Structure formats: C-alpha cells, structure tokens
C-alpha cells in the first residue's frame, strides 16, 4: 500500500528530526529495563531453586518401597539427565560389644547430583569435599554414629555379614536433611557393597530412590513425563515438595523478585504514557496540515499508525537487545557478588518485554490517534483549536485493560500483580483528585505573595490538565522508587527478622513427659536458654464430618501421604508466635476445638466448621475446626499442622518436642543429651537454616542491584514528566524575559512551580508506597510490617529535590539561550 511507504518515509524524517526521540528512548529504556529485570529475576529464581536443590542432592527424587521401574532411569538418561539410584534401609552397626541402629544410605558414583557431601577425619578436624563416594569396603558415619559407638576414623565396624572400615566422618550430606523423620545415625556406603552385607533380603524394608538432575527445561519436561505414568506407591518430589521451609522461602523470594519486576514495569508504563502524550501533542500540527492538504481522516490515521508502529517496533527490539545485553553483563557481575552461578536465562522474558513494550505503546498511542485523525483542518487557521475531546475514553479503557492483562502476565503472580495494579490505579485516581483540590487550595494563598510565587502558581493553574498529569506520573514513578527502597528494605528486614542468626537449628523429638524437666535444666545450664517444649500427640485422621477418610479419594499425591501417615497434633491455649489466624477464631478457653494450618486444610479439603475424627492408639475423639492458621514455615520454629485445645488433647498419651539454637562448637551439648536421653532424637536443620538465610541474603543483594536499575528508569520518568510541558515553558520564559523579567525572577517562579509539583508528587508517592508496603507485607509476603515514617521525609525530599532540581536544570538551559532563539525554535 502506498500509505505504508509514505508513512515509513515520514517516520524516517521524524526520527531524523528528533521528533520521536523521547518516545523512542522512553520505550526502548522501558523495554530494556523490563527485559533486564525480568531476565535477571528469572535467572536469580533459577539460581535460588538450584541452590535449594542442593539440599535434596538432586533436582528430582523418586521414592518407593519397591525397586523402581528401570524405564524411569532409561528415560532420564535418554533425555540427557544425570540419574543415579540409592537404597536406604536400617541396620544394626556393631562395634565390639556395642551396637546401634543406624540408617544406611547406599549410593552410586556421582552422588550427590546437586550440592555436596563433606567429610572430615574425625571430631574437631576440618571437613572437606570427598573426591568420590566411599570406596569398596569402607563407610562414612555421621557424628551421632561416631559418638554413640565411640568410633575413630580407621576403626572397623560390622554391618550385616561383613566388616567395613570407617573411612571418614560425615559432616554434611543431603541425606542428613532429606528426611527429618528419619531418626537414627547415618551411614553412607557404596551401593556395590550392599549385596555382600546380605542385609537386603526379600521382605526387608528398603527405600529405593532415583535421583535425577540436569538442565532445567529437560528436568521439567521429564517431570511432566514421569508424573503422568507414576506407578502406585512411587513418590516424585522436588525440593519444594520435600521441605515446606524451602517452599516458603522460595515463594517469598519469587514474590520479591516479581515485585521488583513489577516496579520496573510500572515505571516503564509511566514513561511511555508521558512520551506518548507528548508525541500526540506534537503531532497535532502535522495532522492538521495533512488534513488541510487533503488527506482523508483514515488516511491521516493510517499514516500516523505506521509511524507509531514503526517507532514502537524499532524501540521495542532495540530495548529487548539492550535488556539482554544488560542482564548478561550484570549477571556476570552478580555471579561474582553473590557467589552462585546464574543459569542462562530463556529468551522468553526478553520477547515478553518487547511485546509488552509494543502493547504499551499502542495502548497509550492508539487512543489519541483515533481522535487525532478527527482534528479539524481549521487548526491551520485558528491555532487554539484542539482535538475533539472524549473521543478516546473507550479506547483508553481498552488500552488500560490490555496493559493490565500484560502486567499480570508479566508478573507471573496473579495476586501480587493485581495488588500492584490496583495500587497504581488508586494512586493515579487519588493523586489526580488531590492535585486538582490542592491547586484550588493553593490559589487561596495568591494574595500578598511575591510575583514569582504568584506566577509559579499561575502557571500551574493555567494548565491544570498538564499539571495533574505531571503530578500523577511523577507520583507513580516515585512510588515505584520508594517501594523498591524503603519498603523493600523494611520487608527484607522483616523477613530476616524471621530468621535471625540464632534461629533454631536443632530439633529434639520424642522427649518423654518425665524427661522434660531435666532436659530443660541441661539446656539452661549449657546454653543459657530454656526453649519452650510443645506436647505432641500422634494421631490418625479417620473421618471428616463423619465420612471415613479414604486415601484413594485424593488425587494429590501429597494428600494421600498425609492421610496415610500419623499426624502430630499439639495442644496449647495460646496461639504460637509466627502463626496467624486466617479464618475463624482461636480456641476459647474450656472448649473442645481444633485449629488447622490453611495449606493442609486446602490439600485435604477441610473447611472451617468441619468436624474431624482422630484415632489415637485405638481411641477416637471428634472436634470441630474453629480456626485456620497461616504458619511461617521458614521461621524454623516448631510448627504443627493441627493444634487442639488443651481440653481436647491434654489427656492423650504424648511426647514433647522443642527446637533450639546450637552455637557452633557446642556439639558436646548434643552428645550429652544423646547420652542422657537415648530415646530423644536430635534433628539437625542447620543446613536448611543456613540455606534459607543465604537465600534471603542473595535476594536482598539481587534486589539492591535491581534498585539501581529502577532508579535509572525513575529518572527517565522524571525527565519525561518535566519535558512534557517544556515547549510551552520555553515560550513563556522567552516572553517573560522579553518583558523584562530577570533571571532570578524566572528561576524563582519555576522553582515555585516545580517545587510544588515535586512536593505533591512526593507526598502522594509516600502515601501510596506505605499503603502498598502494608498490603504486600500482610497479604502477599506474609510478613509483619511497621510503616517507616522516613518514607514521608524521603518522598518529600526526593520529590522536591528531584523534580525541582531537574526542572530548574532545564530552566537554566532555557535561560542560557537568548529569548529570540527560543521563540524562533518554536515558530
């Protein structure tokens, strides 16, 4: 079509004349920042997940009580994945006349596939990475085994039919954290040696595992493949399934990342919105002239559309490339800083950012075009004639909806996305209304003020629409920046506060009621603190609302396992810290009631008010669910899925559980506990704790970096916001100076104007950021939140100094040009 050629030629000319520069740069930077942040958060997410997989020793683990189908292994290898199998079983480890029941893990070369095993030459000596799995005829035993049997490296021990040499002490191993329920000391040996022990006979209890790891996409597709043909009794887990603590931490980390990505999108949106508006203003004359020269309405529309699409496509592609390069450079830098190799990102995020850029451009550029085509040609004679108003309201709504949909898609998290969207929209409306009101109020101060103040105010009021636009855009920009600085810091702080350096890293399970006093005494004497002991009743869920629970009725594997197993119920009158009631009310004194964790309630289909029947050692009881709780798993406190009221459970046979922080080098305390209370099981979660702590640390570093990027985008918004009234201002300055105003007067007038705009924007942004922070903390991240009053000061300061400073900088440049030149440039 002939118009395509002409449109492209016009595009080339407009580009060359610099007419589209702001729009192109705004869009390119918007896309670049979205792409960089998205790609980068993508990579960080992948890296965190990979790190977490170290705990599991693999990306995926199949578990079964029968030998696993060889097909699973073949398929994994065929898909280029690493796969090895392991066996776990219990056996007595014998030394001279002492023996102890231990949990043996027999592994194949290559174990573990993720993370590492560490060994040492004995207690107190430094640990190191082994070069391979235990050699034939040797085993590694953990600290408990060494302690229980008083072993030294090099000692011989008996396992089944034969003797082994203890080649090293195991200090770190995925199997140590994989199953917290596994109780005894640990032994790692080579799988090839298992047969010679004669320990595995038909009918003996053995857990077969297949560990799989490899490139992410391949693992994912393999998981889907395997998931659909999983035989009965085989469990397939990633680290998220295996450890709720890690699942919680990863989800929070991802939300933080999404939040950062969304802030980048919000800023980009504002920048494009402003640039599109300016584009529209500048095209008024072009369109009027095209009409005057005889082009039809649709022809004007087509020509403009070609230009808009052209600049959109160019800038989006440029932005995507820029973003990809940016994230590559920064990824390298970050690898050095946070010390984990970042996996390569998919191109998807870059493409998505480019698509988002184009849609942004069309959403904000197209509606004005629809009205622009209707500009009366008469404008060439009467300049004050503008575009017929209200033409694009519907189109704007559609554009807004498109942007919203894309933002949600981009966020990858519906809840977070909608909160941010609603937050932005509310900020937008509130800021618009309040600005309008403030302009009226400020007008009351006009009398008696100096000429500069009056003039500054007058220019704000003379273009109320432009002023409102400016304030709204700048508020949104500042909100994003404040959210990423103060609010981010507050939220991260709250998260870190959940898991302080002295967070519990050992659990003590199976404490008998008569042992609790002396155990407490030992902990108090040795560690100086008395942790709380929680009663624990082992019970089986047998019926919901009188209907027998049948494991086969649950589609979800996790649900089936949960109902097959015995639950640990606890009882207390006080809601434990780190628990929040999300529905219903906490136990009333004297009542028989149950409180259920909301995640498990969802999995098992339990609703508030349901009556649950439990079986405790043959005796049954029934009670209603009166509340649902949200639990912070990654706090590493003792947590329970189900907590009953004391009236209900205090009479049941129970044991106690507690958690405490074991400082480094205090291992002797554990040995003393094991010695005094042989039945008590010590569970070491130090590796998990430090994994989560590290994750928080890494997320916070990654966010700091993203923040730097966001500030750059914020500056763009600032520039676009100020430049949007620049032409008019240049003309005014020229006229004022022609009329004899001196530099100081002009500067003061503009300082007033920009200062007010900045102050309003800063205050609105502070309010919006605080509100957003609160909502995100409570509803999305599940963290306690205290508003930081600093946000107000900082918002105001950033607004006044940022906007005022940038505005004055531009004004000074205008002042430096002779008025005549200014006027001519606008002729």
């Amino acid at each position, binding site marked *: 079509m002939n118009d395509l050629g002409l449109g492209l030629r016009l595009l080339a000319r407009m580009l060359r004349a610099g007419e589209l520069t702001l729009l192109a740069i705004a869009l390119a930077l918007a896309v670049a920042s979205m792409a960089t942040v998205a790609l980068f958060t993508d990579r960080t997410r992948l890296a965190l997940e990979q790190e977490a997989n170290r705990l599991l020793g693999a990306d995926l683990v199949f578990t079964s009580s029968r030998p696993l189908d060889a097909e699973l292994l073949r398929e994994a290898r065929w898909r280029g994945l690493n796969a090895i199998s392991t066996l776990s079983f219990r056996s007595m480890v014998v030394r001279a006349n002492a023996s102890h029941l231990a949990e043996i893990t027999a592994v194949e070369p290559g174990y573990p596939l993720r993370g590492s095993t560490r060994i040492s030459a004995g207690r107190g000596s430094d640990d190191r990475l082994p070069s391979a799995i235990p050699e034939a005829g040797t085993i590694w035993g953990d600290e408990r085994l060494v302690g229980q049997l008083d072993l030294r490296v090099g000692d011989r021990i008996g396992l089944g039919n034969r003797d082994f040499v203890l080649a090293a002490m195991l200090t770190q191993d995925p199997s140590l954290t994989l199953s917290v329920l596994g109780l005894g000391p640990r032994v790692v040996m080579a799988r090839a040696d298992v047969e010679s022990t004669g320990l595995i006979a038909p009918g003996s209890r053995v857990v077969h595992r297949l560990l799989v790891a490899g490139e992410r996409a391949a693992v994912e597709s393999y998981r889907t493949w395997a998931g659909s043909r999983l035989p009965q009794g085989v469990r397939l887990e990633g680290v998220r399934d295996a450890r709720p603590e890690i699942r919680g931490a990863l989800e929070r980390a991802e939300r933080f990342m999404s939040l950062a990505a969304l802030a980048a999108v919000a800023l980009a949106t504002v920048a494009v919105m402003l640039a599109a508006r300016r584009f529209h203003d500048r095209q008024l004359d072009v369109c009027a002239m095209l009409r*005057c020269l005889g082009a039809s309405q649709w022809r004007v529309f087509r020509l403009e559309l070609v230009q808009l699409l052209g600049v959109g496509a160019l800038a989006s592609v440029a932005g995507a490339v820029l973003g990809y390069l940016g994230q590559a450079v920064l990824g390298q830098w970050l690898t050095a800083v946070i010390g984990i190799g970042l996996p390569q990102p998919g191109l998807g995020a870059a493409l998505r950012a480019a698509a988002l850029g184009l849609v942004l451009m069309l959403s904000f550029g197209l509606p004005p075009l629809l009205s622009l085509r209707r500009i009366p040609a008469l404008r060439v004679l009467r300049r004050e004639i503008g575009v017929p108003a209200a033409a694009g309201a519907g189109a704007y709504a559609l554009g807004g909806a498109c942007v919203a949909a894309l933002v949600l898609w981009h966020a990858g998290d519906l809840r977070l996305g909608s909160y941010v969207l609603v937050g932005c929209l509310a900020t937008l409306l509130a800021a618009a209304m309040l600005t309008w009101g403030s302009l009226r109020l400020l007008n009351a101060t006009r009398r008696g003020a100096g000429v500069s103040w009056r003039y500054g105010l007058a220019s704000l009021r003379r273009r109320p629409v432009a002023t409102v636009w400016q304030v709204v855009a700048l508020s949104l920009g500042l909100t994003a920046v404040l959210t990423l600085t103060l609010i981010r810091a507050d939220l991260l702080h709250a998260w870190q506060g959940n898991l302080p350096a002295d967070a519990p890293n050992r659990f003590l399970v199976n404490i008998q009621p008569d042992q609790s006093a002396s155990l407490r005494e030992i902990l108090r004497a040795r560690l100086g603190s008395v942790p709380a002991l929680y009663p624990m009743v082992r019970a089986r869920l047998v019926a919901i609302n009188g209907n027998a629970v049948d494991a086969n009725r649950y589609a979800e594997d996790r649900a089936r396992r949960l109902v097959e197993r015995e639950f640990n119920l606890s009882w207390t009158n006080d809601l434990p810290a780190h628990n929040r009631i999300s529905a219903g009310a906490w136990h009333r004194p004297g009542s028989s009631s149950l409180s259920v964790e909301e995640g498990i309630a969802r999995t098992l289909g339990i609703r508030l008010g349901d009556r649950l029947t439990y079986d405790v050692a043959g005796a049954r009881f029934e009670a209603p669910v009166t509340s649902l709780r949200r639990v912070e798993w990654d706090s590493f406190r003792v947590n329970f899925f189900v907590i009953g009221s004391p009236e209900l459970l205090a009479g049941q046979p129970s044991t106690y559980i507690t958690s405490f922080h074991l400082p480094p080098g205090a291992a002797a305390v554990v040995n003393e506990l094991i010695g005094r209370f042989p039945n008590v099981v010590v569970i070491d979660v130090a590796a998990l704790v430090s994994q989560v702590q590290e994750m928080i640390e890494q997320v916070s570093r990654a966010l700091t970096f993203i923040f730097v990027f966001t500030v750059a985008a914020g500056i763009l918004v600032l520039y676009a916001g100020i430049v949007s009234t620049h032409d008019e201002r240049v003309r005014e300055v020229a006229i004022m100076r022609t009329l004899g105003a001196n530099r100081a007067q002009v500067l003061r007038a503009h300082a007033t104007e920009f200062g007010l705009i900045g102050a309003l924007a800063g205050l609105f942004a502070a309010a919006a950021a605080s509100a957003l922070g609160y909502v995100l903390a409570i509803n999305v991240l599940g963290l306690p939140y205290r508003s930081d009053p600093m946000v107000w000061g900082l918002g105001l300061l950033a607004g006044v100094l940022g906007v005022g400073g940038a505005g004055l900088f531009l004004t000074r440049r205008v002042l430096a040009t002779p008025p005549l030149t200014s006027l001519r440039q606008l*002729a």
Partner: protein
Amino acid sequence: MRPIVEAIGLVKQVVSDGRDLNIVDNISLRVFPGESVAIVGVSGSGKSTLLGLLAGLDTPSAGEVLLDGENLTALDEDGRSAVRARAVGFVFQSFQLLPALTALENVMLPLELAGAREAHRAAAALLDRVGLADRLNHYPKQLSGGEQQRVAIARAFVTRPKLLLADEPTGNLDAATGSRIVELMFELNREQGATLLLVTHDESISSRCHRTLRLAAGRLLAEAPA
C-alpha cells in the same frame, strides 16, 4: 464560464457572550478561473473565517459553497479534503511549515500524499524557482521568515492547484520581503494559470489584483473593480 469558487448566502454564526453573532453574514460571491481577488477589511471583520469557509476548512451555519464544481456543504469532511487535495493550495500568515521536515520535505509532502512520482525532482525545481536551491535540507527553524514563506509558497504551488488561497501571506514580514513574496505569488500564478484569492491588509497588494472584496463586520461591502 464556471466559477472556480462560488458562495451563496454564506453565514457563520458563533455564540459569543451568550449572544448569537454572525461573523460571516450572508455573503455571496463568485471567483472565476484565472482571476486574482483580494479580500480586505479591518481586523476582526471575518476575512479569515470567510477564507476558511471557502476552502472547506470550516462549515457554514447557512448557505452553500461550490468549489471546483462541487457543493462543499453536501460533502463530509473527507469529501471536502478530497476537493482540497485536487484543487486548492494554501499560504498562511504564520507559514505553517512542519518543523520536523526539511524545506524540501515540506514541499514534497502534498505530492507524496497525492502519490505523485518524481516528488523530489518537482519539489526541488520549485524551491529553485523561489530562490532556495541551496536551502533544500534546512529545517524551518534554520530559515528566516521570508525564506519560510517562500517554502510555503513552493508547497502551495507544487501540486499546480487551480485555486490558491492565501491568508495575509505577508502579514509577518517586513515590507520589502513582503513585496518580493507577493511578486513571487503573482508570477507563479501567471505561469501556472491558477486563480488567486488572498486576504490582505496591504493596499499595494490588493491594487495588483483584478478585484477587491471589502468586508466589514462579516458583510460584503460594495465590490471595487480593479
């Protein structure tokens, strides 16, 4: 001979201070091919309004305009545009060059819109004719007012329009420059055999036209012969 432009009982009414005001009040006129006609009158007498109506840039409250044989009042916006594209060229007091386009590109634009070939050559030739051969790639802001107006004139003539409308083409220029611009317009008018209809305050311009139409408060006064 058929008039190139004809107005019959043209009225433009606006609401001003809550009162209806006829800023063009029952004007009828005819302009024939090859003529040059000046419209004069004091400021605010409705000259620009009348010109806008005759060009189909604005719609009358009553009356009709026939431009190049077409009844503009019967056409919609796009129909009027098409007539303009076919038959009319414009020169404005404030030049109205597009700031993002060079002199050459400004002149090429009407040809490109019409899908004409050799737009570049024709535009360059006409710019040469108005004495701006060495300013082809300058932007409007790099040109003086007189030079800008010469570009505007080249743009108006480049499509060889039957009717050239000019609204105070010399209004923003000094007398010497203005008279050179007018000279140029009349020359091109002769060369191309176009019809010239121009609004002016300048007696020396109106005296060069075949006819002068006088406006006062939106009404046409007696027509003064050349």
